């Protein structure tokens, strides 16, 4: 042990204190920087030749609990998922209006039914008739407006995905770049610690967009995977791609089949060039992107389906007319015949017959289909779960239809076209394999005074609504956006009462029919509205269906809100714990500063004493 050794040791002490001071300065300066982790000095005794002496800066340590950090990432991606969902649900609630206000959906519908009820009291009153038409128009326009709002929300979700994908890509790229830098930098370096802080920040940003898992490699690089195991960042960053659709309408829906999908789909282009469709493989389950996708493809689509179902039920309630066939027989064959004039695409002929061989009653629905691309029709094409649906193209004439049906039924039931537009259904006579039970036809009335109560009150823009099917889907898709009051009826309000030539102006029959259909008659609703199933469809009258829709949406919004709040509490608690541990505590830094100051002074004092001793030695 010599004086010069003491000098060099206190010099190392000075250097260590200086490093500590700069670290304190760095901590205090970055006290409010988001994502900054408190750094401490790792000092150890330097060993030379087996003898200890002096101090060496071993490393700049980041004080962070990795487990806590991992947990926080998981919860914060859940947090941003629930928050975005709750946000969208709140906006969806605004679509239905404030409960009880004059502009709420239910108020508009109630006004319409009340106007019809007033019409039954005074059918001859011109004022009552025009009020019915006006409130009907308001209702139709309200449905149009709601559709536009819901589709605007979907458009926002689409844009949101595009933005999120851009952010995710830049974050992943940054992580990969820092990975490379850290791999080449010496560990324990101050610069490395700062890089790690930055990298954590990017990973947190990515975690808010999608659920991820981070695995630290042996050279300190972060390998980022999605929770379902797809690698996002390794030595290179994968690229997410998304082509947003400019205009989003009820018909632009996502489909796993890329030739049928009209909205953008999220693809992951891996480093080796392969692409994975992330929506189809349900890879992303949490975070903002998952929330946007769920909104765009499921929740808002279901809300639109509910409106479409309501609009379709309203239109068909007032314009459907069912006629029954007349019994007829040819020789020993008995059956029914019916006049199919006026059968539109989407209208159907209902046949009930008993198959004597199995003793079962079978119900057949023969639906007219004008677009051959829609054939064959599925049994779910009608909402009746107990029928078999046969879609037939009527363009070849009724005789061709009859022969096509005969081919299908194989002689058990015989169809023919005795003339004009009459369809005749007969059993097979003496062979007795079948007995015809009933034959009826439900068609959409297109005029206003065809002699029955039904009238085309609501139309699909300028054409009638008959619920037809095409290769792209059903007419009901997006119908709420196109429903309007029949222009011919607006021009001639007396048709609200006069259902035939010679109907008296005070005849309440048709207004009574309209009122009964709107408030009393139950209808089946499609299961894609979120209620009922294909096997047991939801049956209710229009008011009850509307009530159910509002109830379900309100419940979902309230649930989303409480979920978001709960998740927010968890995330905040974790953030608080992380901040407590890894955040800069100014008091602590100040206390450390004081001890560093003292240490510096002490080391300097030692150096001064050694200098004095050397001076004393030299003056000898």
């Amino acid at each position, binding site marked *: 042990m010599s004086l010069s050794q003491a000098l060099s040791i206190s010099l190392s002490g000075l250097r260590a204190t200086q490093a500590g001071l700069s670290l304190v300065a760095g901590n205090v300066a970055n*006290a*409010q*920087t*988001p*994502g900054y982790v408190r750094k401490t000095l790792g000092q150890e005794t330097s060993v030379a030749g087996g003898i200890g002496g002096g101090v060496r800066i071993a490393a700049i340590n980041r004080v962070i609990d990795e487990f806590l950090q991992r947990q926080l990432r998981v919860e914060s991606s859940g947090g941003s998922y629930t928050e975005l969902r709750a946000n969208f*649900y*709140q906006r969806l*609630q*605004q679509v*239905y209006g*404030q*409960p*009880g206000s004059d502009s709420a959906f*239910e*108020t508009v519908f*109630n*006004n319409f*039914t*009340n106007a019809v*009820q*007033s019409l*039954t*009291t*005074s059918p*001859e*009153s011109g004022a009552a008739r025009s009020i019915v038409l006006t409130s009907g128009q308001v209702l139709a326009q309200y449905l149009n407006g709601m559709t536009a709002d819901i589709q605007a929300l979907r458009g926002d979700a689409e844009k949101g995905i595009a933005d999120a994908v851009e*952010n995710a890509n*830049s974050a992943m790229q940054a992580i990969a770049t820092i990975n490379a830098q850290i791999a080449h930098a010496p560990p324990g370096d101050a610069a490395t610690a700062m890089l790690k802080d930055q990298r954590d*920040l990017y990973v947190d*940003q990515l975690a808010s967009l999608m659920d991820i898992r981070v695995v630290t490699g042996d050279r300190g690089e972060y390998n980022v995977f999605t929770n379902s195991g797809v690698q996002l960042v390794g030595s290179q960053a994968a690229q997410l791609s998304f082509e947003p659709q400019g205009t989003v309408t009820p018909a632009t829906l996502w489909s796993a089949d890329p030739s049928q999908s009209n909205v953008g789909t999220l693809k992951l282009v891996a480093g080796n060039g392969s692409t994975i469709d992330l929506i189809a493989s349900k890879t992303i389950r949490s975070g903002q992107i998952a929330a946007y996708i769920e909104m765009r493809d499921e929740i808002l689509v279901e809300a639109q389906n509910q409106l479409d179902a309501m609009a379709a039920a309203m239109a068909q309630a007032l314009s459907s007319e069912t006629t029954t066939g007349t019994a007829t027989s040819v020789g020993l064959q008995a059956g029914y015949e019916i006049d199919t004039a006026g059968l539109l695409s989407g209208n159907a002929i209902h046949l009930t017959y008993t198959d004597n061989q199995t003793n079962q009653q079978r119900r057949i629905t023969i639906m007219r289909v004008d677009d051959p691309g829609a054939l064959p029709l599925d049994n779910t094409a009608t909402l009746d779960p107990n029928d078999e649906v046969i879609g037939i193209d009527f363009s070849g004439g009724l005789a061709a239809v009859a022969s096509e049906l005969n081919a299908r039924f194989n002689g058990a039931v015989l169809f023919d076209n005795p003339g004009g537009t009459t369809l005749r259904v007969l059993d097979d006579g003496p062979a007795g394999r079948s007995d015809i039970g009933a034959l009826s036809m439900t068609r959409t009335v297109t005029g206003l005074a065809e002699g029955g109560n039904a009238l085309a009150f609501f139309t699909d823009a300028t054409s009638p609504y008959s619920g037809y099917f095409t290769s792209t889907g059903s007419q009901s898709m997006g119908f709420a956006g196109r429903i309007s009051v029949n222009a011919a009826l607006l021009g001639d309000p007396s048709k609200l009462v006069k259902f035939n030539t010679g109907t*008296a*102006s*005070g*005849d*309440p029959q048709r207004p*009574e029919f309209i*009122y009964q259909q709107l*408030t009393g008659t139950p209808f089946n609703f499609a299961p894609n509205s979120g209620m009922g199933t294909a096997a047991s469809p939801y049956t209710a009258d229009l*008011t*009850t269906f*509307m*009530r*159910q829709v*509002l*109830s379900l*949406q*309100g*419940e979902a*919004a*309230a649930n989303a*809100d409480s979920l978001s709040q709960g998740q927010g509490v968890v995330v*905040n608690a974790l*953030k*608080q714990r992380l*901040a407590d541990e890894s955040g800069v505590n*100014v*008091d602590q830094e*100040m*206390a450390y500063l*004081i001890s560093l100051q003292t240490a510096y002074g002490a080391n300097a004092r030692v150096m001064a004493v050694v200098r004095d001793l050397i001076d004393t030695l030299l003056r000898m």
Partner: protein
Amino acid sequence: MIVNNAGTNSALSVQTLIDMRNQLVDLQRQLGTGKKATSYAGLGLDRGLTVGLRAHLSAMAGYSQTISEVGVRLDLAGTALSQLDSIGRDAKSTVMKSQFALGSGNQTLDQRTAYLQFDQMLSVLNTSTGGRHLFAGRNVDQPAVATADHIMNGEGTRAGLKQIIAERRLADLGTSGLGRLAVSAPSTTSVQLDEDASPFGFKLSGAVSGLTGSTVSGPAGSPASLSVDLGPTNPAPGETVRFTFAMPDGTSQDLTLTATNSATPAANEFTIGVISDVTAANLQTALTQALGRLAATSLTAASAVAAAGNFFNTDASNPPQRVDGPPFDSATGLVDGTAANTVSWYTGESGADGARTTAIARVDQSLTLSYGVRANEEGLRMAVQSIAVFAATTFSATDPNAEASYISLKQRVTAQLEGLPGKQKITDIEGDIAAVHNALQTAESRHLQTKGTLAQLLQDVEGAPTEEVAAKILALQTNLQATLQTTAMLLRTNLLEYI
């Protein structure tokens, strides 16, 4: 490029402050609007219930409006019907006490009064409110009945009541004035009456002969004929033979001929001759004269009443009936009148269904009241018809049978105004309308109670009670102030202040 906000650490501690502030703002909104939430999400589990309640309340508002509108109509209809009833009763007492004293226009004063009453009745039947005629069935925008002048005197080429009565009179009396009967003697001792093949005039119901040795045969055959055979013996004086005829208005009339020894028989008497042949001849003569007189009196009155029935008893499937002619006195049947040749007294809607169903009022979800009236309902029609026929007929001062005819007409009209048992009267219609009015008022009071209950229920679910919200605001205010103070204290306390 995501930009994070600085100050995240301290923001965690003020997050609670922000939450509390938002809560305070929401409570203020609740206090101001009185409503718990601005969207269905905030209403809680009962949100579906509120939708149903609001729909129910809105429907009830509609029913209340209907009730008040229909109430006005029923009031008016009830007033009109009681007016009609009182006119009918006045007319009946006038007709009953009427004396035959011809004035101007070949009618009595009472007949002219009856015309005014008829006019009054028609204008009451045309009562309308708010452009809606109450007695026109479904054709509420048209008057229910035509004017008195048109009905009585016709309009242009269209025949009125007077013309119908005149035509029918000719048809019923026949060319011979004997009421379409032919008197003949098939054998020397018998007298025969033959109907003719038409619906007009006298129809043979039967005969009862008290003449000794006589036999009555018939009525038989088609067209019917009836004969009284005196036989070889002469009747004794005072014995009678009574013929019964069916009249065109559905009543029946007797004609009794008495045998007498006097050579100058009085009316309705016949002289007993030396032998029954002579008696039979005398009987035939007396019968012919009596028939002529009866035709000029009772048959004329009955014919007028029947003609009024032909004109007024119409509906959608039964047009007015006209005598097929000219010539009318040999007409063989009735034909349907058309809109071009006959005035239609009822211009409202007539259909096969009940008159009440022509106007309905929906006063509750499953309660629909029917209150329509057609002016051609039986009770109203009979009153109008009876007064009309009394006002339409004319008599000649030089006609010896005029007074008897007048009296016969008077009796028939009085009987019709009295009303026959089992037939609808005006008071029946009044009763129906009053019953509906009652039901209306019951429904209104029921709605009032239900509305109160439902509104209270709705308020409980979606309303924000002022006291509760105010208490919450006070509590929150206290918490907020405490938190603000302690947060400020904590943030200020650090080592820097003391170094």
